[in-house]
């Protein structure tokens, strides 16, 4: 069971208090009506499924009810950071900081 740091409550809490809401940073197009069907389909249905670093949206459903982002390693389930909505991740799959994490994760 994951141990998740809620950036709003400022505490590590158990996974059962949270709901996962899929990939983070999927912005709703500002002008949906200007989207082609393909673009709209891309927004609605297509999501990444990486082996390694993944940014996810979670909600502290049984806590403060706030949504926030989680950078999680999909192989090791390590949570590398959590950050508020509107903020940028500091750990990314292309960043230098997490090469190590990816390498370690592969052992699992």
């Amino acid at each position: 069971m994951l141990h998740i740091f809620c950036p709003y409550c400022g505490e590590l809490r158990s996974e059962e208090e949270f709901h996962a809401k899929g990939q983070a940073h999927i912005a709703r197009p500002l002008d949906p009506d200007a989207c082609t069907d393909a673009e709209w389909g891309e927004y609605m249905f297509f999501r990444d499924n990486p082996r390694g670093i993944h940014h996810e949206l979670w909600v502290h459903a049984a806590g403060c009810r706030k949504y926030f982002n989680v950078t999680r390693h999909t192989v090791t389930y390590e949570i590398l950071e959590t950050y508020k909505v509107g903020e940028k991740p500091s750990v990314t799959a292309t960043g230098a900081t997490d090469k190590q994490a990816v390498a370690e994760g592969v052992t699992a």
Partner: protein
Amino acid sequence: MSQVNRLAKGGRIDRSQALSFTFNGQDYQGYAGDSLAAALLANGVDIVGRSFKYSRPRGIVAAGAEEPNAVLQIGSTEAAQIPNVRATQQALYSGLVASSTNGWPSVNTDLMGILGKVGGGMMPPGFYYKTFMYPQNLWMTYEKYIRKAAGLGRSPTEVDPDIYDQLNQHCDVLIVGAGPAGLAAALAAGRSGARVILADEQEEFGGSLLDTRETLDGKPAADWVAQAIAELQKMPEVTLLPRATVNGYHDHNFLTIHQRLTDHLGEIAPMGQARQRMHRVRAKRVVLASGAHERPLVYANNDVPGNMLAGAVSTYVRRYGVAPGQELVLSTNNDYAYRVVLDWLDAGRKVVAVADARSNPRGSWVEEARARGVRILTGSAVVEARGSKRVTGARICAIDAKAHKVTSPGEVLDCDLIVSSGGYSPVVHLASHLGGRPEWREDILGFVPGPGNGIQQRIDAGAVNGVFALGDVLANGFEAGAKAAADTGYKAVSGSLPQAEVRQEEPMLTLFQVPHDKSTARAPKQFVDLQNDVTAAGIELATREGFESVEHVKRYTALGFGTDQGKLGNINGLAIAARSMGISIVQMGTTMFRPNYTPVTFGAVAGRHCGELFDAKRYTAMQAWHLKNGAEFEDVGQWKRPWYFPKNGEDLHAAVARECVAVRSSVGILDASTLGKIDIQGPDAREFLNRVYTNAWTKLDVGKARYGLMCKEDGMVFDDGVTACLADNHFVMTTTTGGAARVLEWLEIYHQTEWPELKVYFTSVTDHWATMTLSGPNSRKLLAKVTDIDLDKDAFPFMSWKEGLVGGVPARVFRISFTGELSYEVNVQADYALGVWEQIIEAGKEFDLTPYGTETMHVLRAEKGFIIVGQDTDASVTPDDLNMGWCVGRTKPFSWIGKRGMNRDDCLREDRKQLVGLKPVDPNQVLPEGAQLVFDPKQSIPMQMVGHVTSSYMSAAMGYSFAMAVVKGGLKRMGERVFAPLADGSLIEAEICSSVFYDPKGDRQNV
């Protein structure tokens, strides 16, 4: 039979407390402090079961969790049945009833065994796959008999009388195992002040120290154990959990511990006590001190009862005062196993010989054995056991371990007990639960845990870490405990450790499978995995058949399956597979271990979440009245809603017909408290509604209410309900009963992630307000009796709301209607609701006020063509499909949720399934809900289905049956016929019509 194998003295048992028990119907006696296995051995019980595949007689092999054979059924009554109990891990209690899980008619004379002898050759690995896969539909039949024969135990058919606990805990340091390493670690961590949990699966702490012949500070090691426990018990932050197996190592250092609180007292817990407890522990650090399991050598007929692990026999002799035989032969490749020889001699029994595979062993214990006159055959091994139901002899030959050859014809020595030791396998299971690969260490001939890599915050100590000498184990454990405490912010405390004897010990020799003078395939069976009946020949066959990956070998042969999880056989199996393919064990790799380490009862997993507490139940404020008035209930999510109120033995149909008539002719009352209610406040509340609802909210005045549809981004209907404007910046939204939580989360996600600039706040008020709906032509007259609100039709028009007193209590009254009749929804604070409800019931007597339930509500709303989201819709229905285009604000400036989605080409097709009414041609026939529809009933099967029935009832008001359905292009097919071909071969014909059956102009609700 008396306890023939009980020694006159010694052991940690209480000879003053004799305990009676039965095994396979026979009465026996043991002593307090015995394990069931020890008591069986004391009584000379050789055969405890029949093997899985070949039905060979099997006896007790080990003394702990690694026991593969003595897996028994326990329980004297049906309700108390417990399958898969290892006799080695079950404390003896008075009245214990145990039996073998297989063997017919009995384990001693087993008919399957004869089949096993004849059929053994016909049952190679993969036998089940090869034989029973075809024809596929017969598998279910085969399986029943295979399971019966396979001895997997059985679950009780009656309700478990016991209760089980779960406990969530946090600690700084969780120590797995209370042997020398774990105890030392606990002392180090405990002295630092860290919060420590020390868990051990055995009846008492101490691990190997409970039966070792080694001393600490010149005294029996068990003395130091008692001293250490006494010190730990005094530490307020240290929790000691005996009889507690750490079974799973889960993500983020979350571990599950299965503690057996009363299993040692009896099959049912004493009154008022929980039988078992599952600890769910979040540990900052884990010290893994799980020890090692002795590994048997693989030789011919090594499964005959009387073949045991060397260390296990030491345990039985020293801990339980039981010597399971008379004349012992040891086959070993290492020094440590020699302790059994010395223990056996101390017990006054005869050691026939030791076969040591090494050419010139000279360790301390070896020399001690020699000095006591034990015959030691070097460069030799037991290649074959003799005997069928009990060992009668051992054939010892000189071997060349490296070349895997027997080099002498050898000799057969009479004996009744062969013990073997092939080294020690660290118990790495927990370290693998999150995917960590164990690492092979040639120097100890075993796998040790791989690094935690930050995934497991774990420090290994003692034998699991490849440290075996007692002094080193204590030091290693202490160091691990100190480090774990320091890592979690505590100041390490130094401390002295007891002095262990220093023994001269020589390296072991690599030996897994003992060679035989015949090839493995032709030699008598050499068992690798006793529980799953996997032989060395079977593993060789698997590799010959091309199963080269260790995971494939495992699955093909069943090596390490089941409750055993490879505790005894895994390493030997890998070594044999590697040798037969000519590769090293490192190249071979190992299979992974998964939770749980040993079987866990379903009771412990479920905890208190069973029976009444299985799921939360939600009741409205009027529940007591509903119960008193005989309501039948329906589950809607967690809510218990009155379904109908039968009178004088009415069935559902009669009650619903009566309730429907009452509402349409006078007045009825419904408890609608379960509808989701969300309070929405803020200057941008109105704008927010515009974005999440399909229709427009800009012009909704204060005091008015409006029906709204909510879609997802794909344009499909997701929820609906009425929202009222309380003030320009204050609204209250209602949602479907089941959708309340979903909708709130939906509003929040859009507010928090897409439009945080909007100033708006959402609060669930579902439980704060109770709602009672008065519906019917007399509802105004009735409500007037209990309220000060002006109910005049112009002062309080349809789709508006008023504040006032109802039954003397402040109320919000909404004039909205889900039945098509004149209706008022009265909302009051929930804790006043029952009183208000009772006043209305009293006032309603003159109108014959009739309480109605959800079923009548469904019928009445369907007569009006009002949808229920989730019944008349699934996630593929747009507002236009529902013919509810009137509820879509196409010109709203903001591109609201669902707009873009419902403008996709596919959503604009005219032949989409659309919601229509159906009138069966026979007015007495009610279409089954869910029935598939076709246009042409004469077509051949498979027919082309064009839709299905979503709601269907008999209408009391109209006097005929009717239905709602989705039909392809249905809105343009008014008057056409559809057919519902039913499973029983009959056919119902119906006419497509408008989905509004009753009062299509809405005159009745607008009076």
